[in-house]
């Protein structure tokens, strides 16, 4: 998420996959993991600016992967009744209601006394009601006579208004996946598509990966002790199909494809949104320079990541592992020295 040019130049340099890295840019995860001729790295680009919160992805994921139900709870958190990612929620749609100017919605008012016919007759005469055709086509692509190149003003007259953010969250399939690094059994592994998958017949249920994940994705299923998370539909990828969530998304908020292509598409999309006045638009998790080496599943967000329940600057926990072992070794030596010191005086 930084636009540090020096850092970008550094990324260009590291074109050869480096093996056994614990952090930093890793341009070819699959080859570094030992796949000699791997297909291009696949991933998700979730464009939350077009998400309508229909939860088709949540449902499709449950259906395809036979994920057990995790209880129906009316949480009072807007329309969110799954609350977060976990063992039995591999896609989670977040709903955030904010008092921020956006579009022409007004919160906290009744519309009982509105005369819809007179309102309709005023269509197209004011900034809050730009009239038919107001959804702007891209500059240059508009038919003659249509208003082109701009969308209706984001905040017509500075009113405090409600906006709704919706975002479908998922496992990030990190370039440096802490869950994978710490798994003692090798149950978590890197696939040839560069994604991260748990093998349920090998998982020991030790639960180490759960607190290791900096995004709070993977979790233990209560009744069986093993951990579960999004597999990026490894089984579907193998036969050339796209993941169930992306397939079911009606607005193409969830886009699936080769990661390079998605990154280009995302950059173009965020530039377009910004040009149209949506200055809050930003990408999250797309940068190979970030703490996890970039995510295989990244997002276009309209506010700070933590508003969506995402960490602002996650770092793969194993980045510090060499230093941890060094400190532990020093501590072990100190302990031995203390014990020796205990015996030095007054030998009997």
């Amino acid at each position, binding site marked *: 998420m*930084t636009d540090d040019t020096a850092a970008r130049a550094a990324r260009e340099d590291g074109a050869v996959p480096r093996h056994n890295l614990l952090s930093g840019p890793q341009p070819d995860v699959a080859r570094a993991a030992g796949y000699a001729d791997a297909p291009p790295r696949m991933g998700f680009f979730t464009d939350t600016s077009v998400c309508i919160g229909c939860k088709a992805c949540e449902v499709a994921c449950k259906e395809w992967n036979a994920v057990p139900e995790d209880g129906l709870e009316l*949480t*009072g958190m*807007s329309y*969110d009744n799954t*609350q977060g*990612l*976990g063992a039995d929620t591999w896609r989670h749609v*977040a709903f*955030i*209601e*904010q*008092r921020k100017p956006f579009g022409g919605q007004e*919160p906290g*008012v*009744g519309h009982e006394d509105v005369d819809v016919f007179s309102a309709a007759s005023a269509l197209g005469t004011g900034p809050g009601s730009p009239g038919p055709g107001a959804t702007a086509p891209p500059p240059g692509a508009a038919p003659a006579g249509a208003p082109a190149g701009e969308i209706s003003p984001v905040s017509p007259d500075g009113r405090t208004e409600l906006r709704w953010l919706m975002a479908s969250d998922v496992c990030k399939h990190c370039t440096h996946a802490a869950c994978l*690094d*710490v*798994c*003692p*059994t*090798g149950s978590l592994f890197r696939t040839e598509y560069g994604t991260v998958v748990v093998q349920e017949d*090998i998982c*020991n*249920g*030790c*639960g*180490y990966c*759960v*607190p*290791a994940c900096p995004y*709070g994705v*993977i979790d233990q299923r209560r009744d069986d002790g093993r951990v579960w998370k999004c597999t990026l539909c490894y089984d579907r990828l193998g036969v050339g199909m796209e993941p169930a969530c992306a397939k079911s998304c009606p607005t193409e908020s969830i886009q699936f494809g080769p990661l390079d292509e998605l990154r280009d598409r995302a950059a173009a999309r965020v530039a377009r949104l910004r040009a149209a006045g949506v200055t809050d638009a930003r990408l999250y998790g797309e940068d190979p320079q970030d703490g996890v080496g970039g995510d295989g599943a990244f997002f276009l967000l309209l506010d*700070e990541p*933590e*508003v*969506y*329940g*995402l*960490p602002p600057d*996650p770092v793969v*926990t194993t980045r*510090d*592992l060499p*230093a*941890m072992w060094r*400190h*532990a070794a*020093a*501590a*072990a030596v*100190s*302990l*031995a020295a*203390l*014990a020796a010191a*205990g*015996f030095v005086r*007054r030998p*009997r």
Partner: protein
Amino acid sequence: MTGSDVPRDGVEGARPGRDALTGAHTGRRRRRGRGERAMVPDAEFSSYYGKPILNKPTWKALDIAGYLYLGGLAGASSLLGAGAHVTGRPALARTAKIGAAGAISLSLVALVHDLGRPARFVNMLRVFKPTSPMSVGSWLLVGYAPLTLAAAATDVAGRYRLVGAAATASAAVLGPAVATYTAVLICDTAVPSWHEGYREMPFVFAGSGATAAAGLALACVPAGQTGPARRLAVLGAALELGSFQLMKRRTGLAAEPLEQGRPHALLRAAEALTVGGTALGAYAGGRNRVAAAVAGAALLAGSAALRFGIFHAGVASAEDPRYTVVPQRERLAARRSPGA
């Protein structure tokens, strides 16, 4: 501060209400480490309905905090046992060797209990992964546990002295690693209160292991042979308390859960027990059998309280998104501010 504009009884009583916090700012006060100057403006905190960002550890407190404790007790006891063996203190040697064997066996029981069934411990050994402290630890235990059992068994049986001496020595070589690797185990997670303390945690655990082993010896060995244990208690307590203070000072916000609620109570108790036990042991442990036993029990309990306190503080830090968001925001701000 609820974010919805529609109250519970609705606008003019016409609308249902919502309790949802929108972009909730939880109004908690900010505490900084003593004497620390803010280099960047205080990061603004918001969260998704106050929900945690991390998934908290699923480990059972009794099993895993107990596992951390027993590992320290065993590792340091092996050192005491070997020292006593070499310097001819048979009672101290026997107690320490049996203590190490017993503690490590119990810790394996705790681990297996947390995993669910014994076969799963065997499954831990299907690969060796240096990036996984749990894998490294499993292999370490597989090497270490039989050595402690051999050392204890030969001592009790009074036979195979050569084998016993070799086992005692090897166990003493691996012991310090067993006592400190558990710090890496919990620090190699995204849990703020654990991860941030990775520099000092191994020293805290080493000191705490030393006091526990000294406590066991004080409690069970005739006064005449407890000299090394008493000195180890003093040195261990100094290492433990010193590095723990350093850790709290340096980790800033991530240390806050150590000073709130149950972890705070446990850690204060740990401090009191360790200091009290050490003082009593050092002062009267060499003469008075009862005082030595009380001091030993206090040291054992103090070391356990420390592990449980640190365990619960970590869980609490994972449950509150503030400990994840605020330091990361500060990091981002520092990186973006010119001249940083």
